[in-house]
């Protein structure tokens, strides 16, 4: 009697070697996909969405690429997930983490083929990861005490991060921008306070950091275009028709005159509300919701600048920047905290008019205005800036810094190699493999830059035997001193890359069976 089918019709089961093969193939395929974007000479990818309009994204941000892929392979999904987490947690290194995990699996595949049990490989990898982390910890530089030096560290990190992105041409400029922006945050990681406004037109170089706050809105007609020493009330209230919120209430009238009366009453109610708002002694009113013509007119009469329909983020930021509170009721004007700023004016960027609040109380917030040739460029620039800002804000909290350009990988590889020599048993093969996977990163960086990777990496290894600051200098195509070149990376990012890549590789290695359920039947919605 043959073994009965246990699963449902479309469900499938893959066992042992085949399951392992499937996960290796999936993971390595993903790695190869993003591999070419690594490093300063990494290439970009075009992503076309399947949604309406087939929108296009051009990017070399690992997380963005992977997020947009539709993947069926479970191991590949694990890799995508770690890249996403890396993005959420530290913001940068999203490509490196996937590449490292992929390389670890590639090495593991060879070991499995050489009849080494996955569990042995895992325990070797664990030892190696721990050793690599300690190696990094020994070599970190911490300039927390020295503000001047720390700032230059930040600058270097920003430049290193940006150099692999579209902004690399103007990295000096943008690095300055991001460092300034992050320094204003004074240690908080709340990136919401940094607003990025994208305006097509001009060139990337025209982008600038503004100390105040820029709201992408127009000033109502007939209202002052420029206010000095503004007192701002930030509100979230209905300024169209103020609905009666008691359930079941409705208006029922029996004659036209009554309609007019009710309308009058409504108008009166609105007028009262506006009066109350005016009584706060303000000269600028910003509302999240619509402001109808009637109240707008009233505001104009009172010489108050009324801005309607500011989006939610805008309102929150504005409240943060100006130090006011977001109000929804207006009965006690004396206790509402108003926001202040020195000057409100309408400015032009390109062809658009924007409202500029300058001289704000809280120095934390600022706005970065990005200019560029097209939307795609701007989107990518925003992603790059976001990465840089994330890394910097994390570095401000954890001030330990490492050198870049493949330096940390070589340092780790050297230590791990030494550990391998000391370890008896089969584990040492796995530890050796770990160090090979680490070396793969500088190899890929130089390959992407069109350099002779075999030669360069060998030179690097020799240089590191002495213990120095050597890394790959992609610009000249040779081995260079990373400290002199000013290429730095944040310790936190590197550590996260190392740990989550090892974790993911471990997870995939432990699998010896894949059970796929029958896909849920969907109706065709074409």
């Amino acid at each position, binding site marked *: *009697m043959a*073994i*009965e*089918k*246990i*699963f*449902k*019709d479309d*469900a499938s089961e893959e066992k042992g070697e085949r*399951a392992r093969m499937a996960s290796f193939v999936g993971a390595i395929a993903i790695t190869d996909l993003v591999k070419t974007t690594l490093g300063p000479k990494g290439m970009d990818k075009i992503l076309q969405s399947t949604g309406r309009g087939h929108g296009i994204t051009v990017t070399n941000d690992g997380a963005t690429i992977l997020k947009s892929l539709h993947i*069926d392979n*479970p*191991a590949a999904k694990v890799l995508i*997930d*770690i890249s996403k*987490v890396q993005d*959420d*947690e*530290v913001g940068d290194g999203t490509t490196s983490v996937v590449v490292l995990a992929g390389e670890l699996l590639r090495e593991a595949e060879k070991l499995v083929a050489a009849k080494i*049990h996955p*569990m*042995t490989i895992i325990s070797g990898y664990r030892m190696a990861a721990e050793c690599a982390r300690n190696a990094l910890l020994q070599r970190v530089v911490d300039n927390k005490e020295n503000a001047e030096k720390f700032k230059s560290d930040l600058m270097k990190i920003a430049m290193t991060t940006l150099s692999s992105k579209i902004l690399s041409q103007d990295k000096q400029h943008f690095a300055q921008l991001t460092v300034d922006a992050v320094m204003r945050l004074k240690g908080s*990681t*709340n990136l*919401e306070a940094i607003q990025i406004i994208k305006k097509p037109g001009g060139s990337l170089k025209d982008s600038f950091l503004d100390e105040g706050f820029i709201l992408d809105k127009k000033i109502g007609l007939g209202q002052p275009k420029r206010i000095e020493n503004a007192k701002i009330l930030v509100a979230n209230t209905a300024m169209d028709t103020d609905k*009666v*919120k*008691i*359930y*079941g209430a*409705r*208006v*029922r009238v029996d004659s036209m005159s009554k309609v007019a*009366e*009710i309308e009058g*009453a409504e108008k009166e*109610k609105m007028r009262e509300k506006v009066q109350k708002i005016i009584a706060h002694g303000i000269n600028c009113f910003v509302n999240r919701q619509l402001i109808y013509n009637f109240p707008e007119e009233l505001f104009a009469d009172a010489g108050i600048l009324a801005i309607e329909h500011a989006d939610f983020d805008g309102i*929150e930021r504005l409240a943060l920047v100006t130090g006011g509170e*977001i*109000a*929804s*009721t207006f009965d*006690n004007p004396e206790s509402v905290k108003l926001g202040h700023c020195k000057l409100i004016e309408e400015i032009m960027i390109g062809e658009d008019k924007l409202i500029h609040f300058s001289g704000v109380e809280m120095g934390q917030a600022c706005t970065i205005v990005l200019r560029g040739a097209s939307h795609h460029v701007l989107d990518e620039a925003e992603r790059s800036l976001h990465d840089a800002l994330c890394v910097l*804000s*994390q570095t401000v909290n954890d001030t330990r810094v490492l050198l870049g350009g493949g330096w940390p990988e070589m340092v780790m590889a050297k230590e791990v190699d030494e550990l391998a020599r000391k370890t008896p048993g089969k584990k040492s093969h796995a530890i050796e493999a770990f160090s090979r996977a680490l070396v793969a990163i500088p190899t890929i960086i130089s390959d992407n830059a069109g350099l002779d990777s075999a030669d360069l990496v060998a030179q690097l290894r020799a240089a590191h035997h002495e213990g120095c600051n050597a890394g790959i200098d992609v610009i000249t195509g040779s081995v260079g001193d990373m400290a002199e070149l000013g290429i730095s990376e944040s310790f936190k990012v590197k550590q996260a890359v190392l*740990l*989550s890549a090892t*974790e*993911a590789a471990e*997870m995939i290695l*432990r*699998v*010896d*069976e*894949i*059970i*796929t*359920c*029958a*896909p849920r039947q969907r109706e065709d919605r074409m």
Partner: protein
Amino acid sequence: MALAFDEYGRPFIILKEQDQKTRLRGIEAQKANISAGKAVARILRTSLGPKGMDKILQSPDGDVTITNDGATILEQMDVDNQIAKLMVELSRSQDYEIGDGTTGVVVMAGALLEQAERLLERGIHPIRIAEGYELASRIAVEHLEHISQKFDFGTEDIEPLVQTCMTTLSSKIVNRCKRHLAEISVKAVLSVADLERKDVNLDMIKVEGKVGGKLEDTELIYGITVDKDMSHPQMPKQIEDAKIAILTCPFEPPKPKTKHKVDIDTVEKFQTLRLQEQKYFDDMVQKCKDVGATLVICQWGFDDEANHLLMHRNLPAVRWVGGVELELIAIATGGRIVPRFQELTPEKLGRAGLVRERSFGTTKDKMLYIEHCANSRAVTIFIRGGNKMMIEETKRSIHDALCVARNLIRNNSIVYGGGSTEISCSIAVEAASDKYPGVEQYAIRAFADALDSIPMALAENSGLQPIETLSAVKSQQIKENNPHYGIDCNDVGTNDMRQQDVFETLIGKQQQILLATQVVKMILKIDDVISPSHY
């Protein structure tokens, strides 16, 4: 077969539309069932023990789960076969009852079925086999009792508990920091345990996870975390000595359930209505304020106006808190859930030493921590990890560890792990079998062989020679009359499980044997399978 004839020779049908049904009878049915049961057990066999492998499970929607928890694997498998479903049930009931050993129970049942197949081939009646198994399981359970040890622990001395939890965790992917997690689990269980009554309510332990950070960052919070933030961005992020009003009514004008209409036909009515509305909001906030609340936690949302009023009166609030969390908060803070503003009194407020908002990573994720609660019995285990699958698996592992700790508090008898108890039981059953006359003797002996299959699988998964290792350990146990020898999975160098500190709970093991025997008996008793072949 399904056609019978009455006394006049007229045919009548017993089974309707029999052509469309497949039917298996007699020995055929039993063999088919056994092979299905074995197939399920084979899937789980490789997941057993500290060197067991994981499985990837892809759900119908394409979500990926990676686990080596037997119950989870079986639950997520798209099983269609009836017998396979029985096995799924088996592991689930072990999960509900004990929480751990879900893989072992299925492997055990599979081994019993395998042995039964051989006996069937020799022409032994299935019922006799079932009876023999029943006898054998009783012997085994008694023997377990005999070799078990009591061990003492107190709130001070948690080391034995931690050791047992570590045994459970060592077979999971989290074994990298099993010590840390085991300590967390034990502390969590002890803080909610009622040592007098020997009872633990695991509902009091909330296991929360958030991606990011490392596994080592996992922490135990003596309080509650809620995945929410303050309703107004400018409310204070930290409140000390909070008095919490827990509300299930929205901050909105009441909505009577009966249908009604308020007709507005004059200007006066319009105005009074407006005033009333304002008063509603004012009253609501005032009531909360009057009773002395410093934090409002609400199950529903509130209107922008109410939100601002709250903010204005310096009364921080949290909205859209789920029902379960609300209950936990109520338990932890010793407050009452209040369904109406009118019923709010100072006694009904909950108390917490510290309420704070914490943000994570670069995204806007925020969580609310409610700590130092009046009733510190509710705790939260907060898991961090590299990716989503990792967190999920850690949650499952922690659940297992919690269950083990709870079982130990209920019954502090332990047996030694690493397959040592199975070997010892096998020896005992084997020895007892000779005393039984009749066919059952064979079944009992088969049971002993089936017990051997667990240490065998352990050895196999650890890369040892299964037969060689097993026979060596067995002879050692008999020679030295010491039931503590097991399989040395981690290559430590000794196979005395007492030295390796590998413990399992007695009730867990007993339950495993009893449940497995029961299911196998059930499967053996089936001699006719009728199923519609096509829809």
